[in-house]
């Protein structure tokens, strides 16, 4: 099979782009043999432990480590004074102490770290550290943080970012106006592999760190600054990552373990337990959103006015970028002539919030999709019809002034969803199909079915003028009588399957079956973060570009050896061939002793910053769209919900690996289901009430229904292979579709997610 992409004939081979070969790490993961970061081990290593603040807001008046230091087996007890470089780090602003100095700003903030020869010893010594605090009043409400008379938690105030978006008439009039106040609770990434890693001192003042992360180079930058070292002295290698979803973008134990390793001269391992993990990573921003939608009587949007408050918690993390997304995507995938949005990201004394799959778009979608349903009601239209009448399409101008310049098939997604068969009425014979499951709460009593629709929009790749690039090295040589390629990047494989598609890209571009993905580390340039649905686009793009350079060099080399012109040659399943004469030679023979080795730094087209007053600017690279239809059975007397079906249509531009694409859609939809009906970190006065998987619930197989999934491939001409980032869009529309279905079943307003049983009864 030969396919033509961007005018070039690609090499035909099995298991290339568009097929679904097995993951290189799949068997080991299924068999439990894959080494995750928490499995790391080094002879003579020490174990680290972290003392954390019990208060959400307090001034530290004293730290006494003497009892901890005296424990036999303890090698080091370090506090802020032991941080040799800058005692601050952060993704956007270095505002977070490595170890707290004067003030703690959240419950769980690291105050001291211990290294000992046994994890128990480290834990016990840690508990012997005496810290005295003067408790301060915590700021726990994001709106108060912006407008109220509360303490300033950081110099410059409590607003991390305010992003206004202004388009058209700012005081518009409309025939039909609906308003609503919506809340999104704090969701957790709930990755299964806790924060963990191993720091090994090199004996010359530097350190090698093996860690589960999403972006090796941005970790390295922050560690280097805190340790006062050079990048050459701090080398990172990706350890096995047990899920990420944004929660590994910020540092957790990286600096602490490195500091302890340098101080003790011994390798130091740190592994958080599940409870500590809830304190050890950022969460999804909780949101409070005020929306007003105006429309003509026939349901055409006239204006959207919104105020969105995102609670960033104690430190900035990526709050600024999350605000940018919520603001620019705040009206959803609709064509709206008049827009006035204000989005604030704030500091409070709640747990720090940052990146999580959907990144600002999730929160906004619950607001604008709830409003679209309300507007449909007010206009006497169906939920799909109101959306179709306002659906954006290719050529639509966003509220930022940016023209959507590739496929935006919003109406088609809805049409296809409506065309899917609806599930049969539930059987009361099998408890597992009913709300409550085998807990035997209903045999059909009180159960009402509802159907809901939602569409979402997400920017793909980094936005707002960020210099977004990825680096890839591709090397081709004959190994053991076979052509073989090695691929090196620093792109974090976090479970999503990048390692599989990089192999597929090489097979497609070079016709070589045997592709080895080298360990990801900082010996090569940055690949950017595994986030923003960007790695297929960016590191896929970089690997493809490097492969094309290798192919160019190889064809020149072959042309010389075979006395042909480069133009007539192509690669075909491990052979060199010409159009006229067919196969000319085995690639391995042409290669001989030659080696082709190319490194490429690859960028997507540039984006622009948003105007700080108007929010205008071509801020985004690409937009991704997904739509869901949820069917739910609700036990209206008990408020229990069974999602019966959750169907999805998503445009992915090009499915590089169709099985992986479907997996992303299933997983993203499940995460959206979790936010709809159960997942929330509950806080009270800044303190997490449920830091465990006993009480932070994530969907089980009995909560997540089978899905009908329809994948569209409408190529984006700007993107490698025409692909469109896949990972985030299905998380966005899943939540509002399910809530819409629950509203349809119950008639309740349901202004907050997750929907709890007592909201329904």
């Amino acid at each position, binding site marked *: 099979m030969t396919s033509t992409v961007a005018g070039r004939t690609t090499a035909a081979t099995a298991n290339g782009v568009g097929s679904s070969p097995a993951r290189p790490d799949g068997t080991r993961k299924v068999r439990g043999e894959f080494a995750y970061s928490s499995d790391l081990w080094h002879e003579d290593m020490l174990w680290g432990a972290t003392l954390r603040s019990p208060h959400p807001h307090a001034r530290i008046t004293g730290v006494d480590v003497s009892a901890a230091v005296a*424990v*036999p*087996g303890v090698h080091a007890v370090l506090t802020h004074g032991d941080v040799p470089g800058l005692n601050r780090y952060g993704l956007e602003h270095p505002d977070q102490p490595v170890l707290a100095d004067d003030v703690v700003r959240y419950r769980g903030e690291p105050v001291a770290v211990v290294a000992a020869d*046994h994890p*128990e*010893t480290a*834990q*016990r010594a840690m508990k012997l550290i005496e810290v005295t605090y003067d408790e301060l009043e915590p700021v726990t409400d994001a709106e108060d943080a912006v407008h109220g008379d509360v303490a300033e938690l950081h110099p410059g105030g409590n607003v991390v970012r305010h992003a206004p978006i202004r388009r058209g008439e700012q005081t518009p009039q409309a025939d039909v106006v609906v308003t609503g106040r919506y809340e999104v609770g704090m969701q957790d990434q709930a990755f299964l592999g806790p924060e963990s890693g191993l720091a090994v001192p090199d004996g010359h003042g530097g350190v090698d760190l093996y860690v589960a992360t999403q972006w090796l180079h941005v970790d390295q930058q922050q560690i280097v600054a805190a340790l006062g070292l050079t990048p050459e002295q701090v080398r990172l290698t990706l350890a096995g990552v047990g899920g990420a979803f944004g929660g590994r973008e910020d540092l957790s134990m990286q600096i602490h373990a490195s500091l302890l390793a340098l101080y003790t001269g011994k390798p130091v391992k740190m592994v958080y*337990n599940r*409870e500590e993990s809830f304190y050890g990573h950022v969460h999804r921003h909780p949101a409070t959103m005020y929306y007003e939608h105006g429309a003509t009587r026939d349901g055409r949007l006239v204006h959207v006015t919104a105020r969105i408050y995102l609670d960033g918690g104690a430190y900035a993390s990526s709050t600024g970028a999350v605000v940018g997304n919520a603001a620019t995507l705040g009206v959803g995938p609709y064509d709206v002539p008049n827009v006035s949005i204000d989005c604030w990201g704030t500091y409070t004394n709640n747990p720090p919030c940052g990146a999580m799959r959907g990144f600002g778009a999730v929160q906004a979608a619950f607001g604008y999709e709830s409003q679209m349903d309300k507007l449909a009601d007010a206009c006497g239209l169906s939920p799909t019809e109101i959306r179709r009448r306002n659906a954006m399409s290719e050529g639509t101008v966003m509220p930022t002034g940016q023209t959507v310049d590739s496929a935006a098939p919003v109406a088609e997604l809805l049409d296809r969803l409506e065309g899917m068969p609806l599930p049969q009425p539930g059987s009361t014979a099998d408890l*597992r199909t009913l*709300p*409550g*499951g*085998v*807990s*035997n*709460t*209903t*045999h059909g*009593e*009180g159960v009402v079915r509802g159907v809901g629709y939602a569409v979402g929009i997400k920017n793909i790749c980094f936005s707002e003028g960020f210099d977004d690039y990825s680096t890839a090295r591709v090397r081709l040589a004959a190994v053991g009588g076979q052509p073989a390629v090695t691929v090196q990047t620093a792109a974090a494989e976090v479970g999503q399957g990048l390692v599989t598609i990089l192999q597929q890209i090489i097979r497609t571009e070079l016709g070589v079956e045997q592709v080895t993905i080298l360990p990801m580390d900082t010996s090569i340039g940055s690949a950017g973060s595994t986030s923003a649905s960007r790695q297929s686009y960016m590191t896929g793009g970089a690997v493809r570009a490097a492969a094309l350079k290798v192919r160019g060099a190889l064809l020149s080399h072959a042309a010389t050896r075979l006395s042909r012109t480069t133009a007539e040659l192509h690669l075909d399943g491990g052979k060199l061939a010409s159009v006229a004469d067919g196969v000319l030679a085995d690639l391995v023979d042409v290669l001989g002793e030659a080696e082709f080795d190319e490194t490429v730094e690859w960028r997507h087209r540039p984006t622009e910053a948003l105007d700080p007053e108007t929010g205008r600017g071509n801020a985004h690279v690409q937009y991704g769209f997904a739509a869901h239809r949820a069917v739910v059975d609700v036990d209206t*007397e*008990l*408020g*229990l919900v*069974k999602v019966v079906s959750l169907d999805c249509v998503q445009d992915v531009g090009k499915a590089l690996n169709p099985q992986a694409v479907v997996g992303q859609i299933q997983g993203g939809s499940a995460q959206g289901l979790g936010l709809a*009906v*159960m997942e929330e970190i*509950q806080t009270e006065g800044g303190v997490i*009430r*449920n830091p465990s998987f*006993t*009480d932070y*619930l994530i*969907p*089980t*197989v*009995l*909560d997540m229904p089978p899905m009908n999934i329809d994948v569209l491939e409408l190529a984006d001409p700007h993107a490698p292979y025409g692909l469109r980032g896949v990972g985030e869009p299905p998380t966005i529309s899943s939540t509002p579709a399910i809530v819409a279905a629950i509203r349809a079943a119950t008639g309740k307003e349901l202004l907050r997610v997750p929907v*709890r*049983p*007592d909201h329904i*009864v």
Partner: protein
Amino acid sequence: MQGSDAVELVRPDTLEEALAAKAERPGAVPLAGGTDVMVELNYDHRRPEALVDLTRIAELATWSASGGHVRLGAGVPYTRLIDELGDTLPGLAMASRTVGSPQIRNRGTVGGNLGAASPAGDTHPVLLAAGAEIEVASVRGARRIPADTFYTGVKRNALAPDELITAVHVPSAAVPAEQFSKVGTRNAMVIAVCSFALVLRDGHVGAAIGSAAPTPRRVPDAEAFLAAELPWGTDAPLPDSLKRRFGELVAAATEPIDDVRGTAEYRTHALGVLARRTLTWAWDDHRGSVRACA
């Protein structure tokens, strides 16, 4: 590991050895499936002087039936209870099916549930409603504690420091008019927001609530009302007014709190609903048996 506060692990092969160990070390914590105890140890929420591993004592993992009772060894895991006693102890099997995940049910035991005595423990309402007795033993001898005097406070039970739970004695269902129902905010693998058990047997009514008071407890007013009002021995359907009154009496007997899993108000409301529904289902079972006998 440093220090003298290491946890001693005692691994007796017989019940006598276990009772002797418990008598010597009253602070020792018995360990069967470990699904509760090991979590607490791993999080350092608890550091007992010793653990007494009961898994080598074969007799604890057996059950027998005679004279309308089942003697269920404290170490029989939920999975076996479900597979082997599903028809004989239908209420207890229903509750067991709602415990944790399959892996937890493979390890966890009714004995462990009783030892922890959590107000949210899944088997307690059924043991209360069925009129079960908890058999406990020490070097001083064995005794039986009725379920309704077993739960003495939040996570406290009537065991003396030197006693171990050896078995529960549960009346088996000649007629399977037993129901258990539990509300959780997830459709599987969830701790009870509240739970309810109902057993109807020859003019006798047992009804109990879980996770809605400091301890699992019976609801005597509701039981007495139902025992008096049910048209026993007939297959007549129940009037809605009777079901509603029963629900109200159950709701009135709750003493719930607001916590991270749900509100007090919701728990009271939900128990009223569960009471009405389980009464309908249990009475349907009773009617079926009346018709079968006719």
